[in-house]
């Protein structure tokens, strides 16, 4: 088949989009917009920051989760604090990452950082569909000096299987 004919055929083909649902929870989009800031719990506790609900339409769908979180630690002196961040499907931990915030100065200092989480959930449902699944972003610190005043974003993109 001549190339120009193939090209004309391609011109009329409409590839099917896979993104069928996009849910987002963004309780804060700028730093400082949560006042007073949310205190991050110390282990073994966790602080729930936000959640989204996704209605899964097929067992073969994937859910692409992205989370972004601003964190601030108030140090009295030189030190470090470690924050554990998790994504949950219902009550099941499906993703976990860790962020350390540190201060190099002997005088009191406030140190801010940003952290990103990204996970693809392949096993969103195992039974009948449609079913609504809740995804939650939560955090825990190893010292009671960490807060979040934003931004906090959690998005869930439902993608059909590849053609």
């Amino acid at each position, binding site marked *: 088949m001549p190339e120009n004919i193939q090209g004309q055929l391609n011109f009329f083909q409409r590839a099917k989009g896979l993104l069928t649902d996009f849910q987002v929870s963004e309780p804060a989009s700028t730093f400082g917009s949560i006042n007073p800031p949310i205190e991050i719990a110390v282990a073994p506790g966790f602080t729930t920051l936000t959640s989204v609900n996704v209605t899964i339409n097929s067992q073969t769908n994937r859910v692409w989760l992205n989370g972004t979180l601003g964190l601030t630690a108030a140090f009295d002196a030189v030190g470090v604090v470690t924050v554990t961040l998790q994504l949950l499907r219902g009550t099941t931990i499906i993703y976990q990452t*860790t962020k350390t915030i540190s201060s190099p100065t002997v005088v009191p200092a406030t140190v801010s950082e940003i952290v990103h989480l*990204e996970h*693809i959930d392949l096993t969103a449902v195992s039974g009948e569909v449609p079913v609504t699944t809740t995804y939650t972003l939560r955090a825990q610190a190893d010292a009671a000096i960490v807060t979040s005043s934003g931004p906090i974003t959690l998005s869930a993109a439902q993608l059909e299987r590849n053609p």
Partner: protein
Amino acid sequence: MTQNSQSRGIVIPIQDRLTEFQFNEPISTPIADSIPLVNANLAEATININDNTDRVLITATVGWFNAFEEAAGVAAATFTINRNGIPIASVVQTVANPSATAANIFNVARIIFVDQPLPEVIPAPGSFIHGNVQVTYTLTADASVDTVATTGPITLTLSRIERKL
């Protein structure tokens, strides 16, 4: 996205669609045995390109750390996206231990990159691709010291964004 151009009395729909999604997430929750980041291959995924105007949205997210001994210091890690083995995007990130206390200092690296116009898979200007052309993307890492490592998470995604006029 759909746009309508009616400046000349005609309607031209422009559609950008996510038409293929590939990913590799070898670690989603921390593993027991750490993986050193010096000259490391972290993730790999392959996607099909079938049109000259296709673009690939690439995202990568890596949790990593350095195990500092009893000294203050700084360690660096470089994360690179490669297309068919050729570097096309990278970031450098550091972690710092502020005191002489031994500590694991953690950080999270994030890369977002749109690969276009995919010169390796476009045969020639004005020509058309016949069928699918597979393109492999890898996420690699390197580090300033051999105590830099990861226990996860490691996520690499590829989204083909297809444009049809």
